[in-house]
């Protein structure tokens, strides 16, 4: 920033062409605040305008060139100096020369690859941004505009349930089951815990969702665990043969898709942690990894069609369905 009244300075403003129609997504910044940014997807073209507004109209702005860059980079907090750029595109907007008046430049990056999802974590950050720069001899003028990228997946072809028998010999045997191994971010975990042997005095049982962020490689691997949900599923003492249902709606929790070895720099994985607590506060637990993925939004079908599906899901037995059909038939008669 130049405080001298002589010389010329300028303000840069970057505007996307589809700013009116493009959706924005909320994204947490490093200090925990939530902000909204334009949402882009892999392969989409990024086009817009760079508005250069001269601060002192009438004075010329000499420059060594004006350009705009689209950058995707990973920043490890313990190694701030090194930004690992995995996407770096540049478009020259103006050759070295001078601006005599405020000007607008068009830009277009066609079918930009955005292979990873934007992520702000405890020890690492991955971000995408546009940066317009007016190069000058002494100091450049630049402006950055952050955008958020989401990676979408389709329904996995194979999505087996997780079913396992675990325990402590002669003390506690349980069989736990989760209906899937891959869940999307607005999915529901449906499961059950079946007690085969209970020789302990269990007081309650909960299921936790644990997020593990792994940064670094080789001897410098660092795991950061964060329990993002604790959900009590049983209060009281179970006995043999008892089955405790689990129904955990994921939409209420702030989670990202599972990220494995992003650009060989970091991973974000999620685990379900089943915890049983006995009368003396002793904890018995079993951790199981699940894969989270992001589903694209689909067009909503008509409401009555959805209601029909919902009622089918709710009625479990054929007798209930018969009763419903009879009630509907009676209504139509009247």
């Amino acid at each position, binding site marked *: 920033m130049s405080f001298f009244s002589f010389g010329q300075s300028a303000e840069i403003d970057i505007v996307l062409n589809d700013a009116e129609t493009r959706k924005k997504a909320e994204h947490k910044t490093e200090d925990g605040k939530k902000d909204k940014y334009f949402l882009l997807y892999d392969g989409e073209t990024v086009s817009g305008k760079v508005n250069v507004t001269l601060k002192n109209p009438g004075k010329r702005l000499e420059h060594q060139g004006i350009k705009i860059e689209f950058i995707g980079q990973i920043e490890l907090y313990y190694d701030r100096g090194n930004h690992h750029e995995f996407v770096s595109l540049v478009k020259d907007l103006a050759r070295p020369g001078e601006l005599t008046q405020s000007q607008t430049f068009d830009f277009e990056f066609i079918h930009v690859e955005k292979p990873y999802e934007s992520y702000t974590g405890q020890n690492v950050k991955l971000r995408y941004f546009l940066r317009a720069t007016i190069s000058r001899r002494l100091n450049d003028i630049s402006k950055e505009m952050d955008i958020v990228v989401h990676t979408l997946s389709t329904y996995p072809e194979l999505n087996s349930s997780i079913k396992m028998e675990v325990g402590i*010999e002669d003390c*506690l045997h349980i069989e736990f089951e989760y209906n899937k191994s891959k869940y999307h971010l607005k999915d529901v975990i449906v499961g059950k815990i079946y007690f085969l042997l209970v020789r302990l005095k269990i007081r309650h049982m909960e299921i936790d969702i644990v997020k593990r962020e792994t940064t670094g490689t080789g001897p410098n691997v660092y795991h950061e665990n964060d329990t993002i949900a604790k959900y009590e599923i049983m209060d009281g003492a179970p006995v043999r043969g008892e089955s405790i249902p689990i129904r955990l709606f994921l939409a209420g929790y702030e989670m990202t898709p599972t990220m494995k070895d992003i650009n060989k720099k970091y991973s974000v994985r999620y685990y379900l942690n089943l915890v049983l607590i006995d009368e003396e506060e002793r904890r018995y637990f079993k951790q199981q990894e699940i894969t989270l993925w992001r589903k694209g939004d689909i067009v909503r079908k008509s409401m009555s069609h959805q209601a029909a599906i919902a009622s089918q899901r709710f009625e479990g037995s054929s007798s209930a369905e018969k009763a419903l059909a009879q009630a509907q038939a009676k209504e139509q008669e009247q």
Partner: protein
Amino acid sequence: RSEAGGEMADTIADTRRLFSKPQNLNDAYGPPSNFLEIDVSNPETVGVGRTRFTTYEIRLKTNLPIFKLKESRVRRRYSDFEWLRGELERDSKVVVPPLPGKALFRQLPFRGDDGIFDDSFIEERRAGLEQFLNKVAGHPLAQNERCLHMFLQDESVDKTYTPSKIRQA
């Protein structure tokens, strides 16, 4: 009336419960398999003068197969509890809870009360010993130690025993 076709499955998640075997009624209403009750009671001071000491009755009732006797009654003194705690700390991976205090200051002369034979002190100690035993005896790892079973169910504590783990058939 016709509705839009297409993928019905994605719109609303299926949240119906997973199937479970119905519970056996004997399991549901019978006695639970985790019954274990330990009481520490009836403090009795034995001996005279300097050699006096207090013993406590330890009564155990259980249906856990790991205990040889389903009911047992023994008498132990504070130093026996200290011995048990030491054995468990050394041999098992259990984080052993603390015992109620040793109260050495109560054994100093010229006290206004009965020192370690004071009724309220004995009651405090009794309650602490009961809490200690219930915590320890319910621990799956402590239940594997020979010293715990000897302490709870044998006539007397043989401090020259060979420490070992209990193995179930």
